[in-house]
């Protein structure tokens, strides 16, 4: 019961923060709302038993990604009028909550009319996260290392100085 209440409250906050991150015209506020959404998501992950995923979500997404966002925002500062030209008008962004309400109502009607139920929670498998991550999914780790290296090389190539700038 207590777990359900925490998850419901966290889901409400998660949806609210994601909506505010999308609708806000200020990039800095959007980045902060995204960080709050990550923190809320990590609470939900923790309550579902995904402890390690929750820790990495809060440290990488809430921390590192926010820092990268704020660095990008500070290095690409545009005038207010120029920024407004790139955004959809306030009217068009204001349609998003209305759209979400309609989609939500449609989902509820579909679920009730078809008697939709998810399967009940199965008994937890014997494999621990450690066994799965380091033994069963070893190739995933290699893929992640390769992706990180490629990302680092891509950024260093992107941000090198041109011959003309030298």
């Amino acid at each position: 019961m207590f777990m359900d209440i925490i998850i419901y409250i966290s889901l409400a906050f998660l949806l609210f923060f994601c909506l505010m991150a999308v609708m806000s015209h200020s990039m800095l506020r959007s980045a902060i709302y995204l960080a709050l959404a990550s923190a809320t998501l990590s609470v939900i992950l923790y309550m579902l038993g995904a402890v390690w995923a929750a820790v990495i979500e809060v440290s990488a997404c809430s921390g590192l990604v926010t820092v990268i966002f704020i660095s990008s925002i500070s290095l690409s500062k545009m005038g207010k009028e120029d920024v407004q030209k790139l955004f959809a008008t306030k009217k068009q962004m204001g349609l998003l909550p209305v759209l979400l309400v309609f989609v939500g109502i449609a989902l509820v009607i579909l679920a009730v009319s078809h008697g939709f139920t998810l399967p009940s929670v199965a008994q937890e498998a014997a494999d621990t996260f450690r066994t799965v991550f380091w033994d069963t999914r070893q190739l995933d780790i290699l893929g992640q290392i390769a992706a990180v290296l490629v990302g680092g090389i891509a950024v260093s190539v992107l941000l090198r100085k041109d011959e003309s700038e030298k």
Partner: protein
Amino acid sequence: MQIFNFETVMLFVGILMITAGFYCMIRTYHMLKIIIGIEVSIKAATLFFTLAGYLNGHIGLAQAFVITAIVLEVIVVVVFGGVTIRLYQKYGNVDIRNLTRLKG
């Protein structure tokens, strides 16, 4: 209602988050805003992965997938951030339509 438990609500919230993320990606030309749309959609995918692992009883496997998704999410943000900065240095704005003007 009996069919509404937190797992179903979680599924609905995930679908709404994906809708919001896609709407953000298509309604603006600002590079950083598009990245935010991508981030919101990936968070919904993370939620779905964890819910699936919770229901199946394979939460360890779901965590492994979620960690992979988070690493790739960070890499996408870093590379897109680099592209945004370069775009700003070249054209003075972060309009994604300027990418089509690049040669080669």
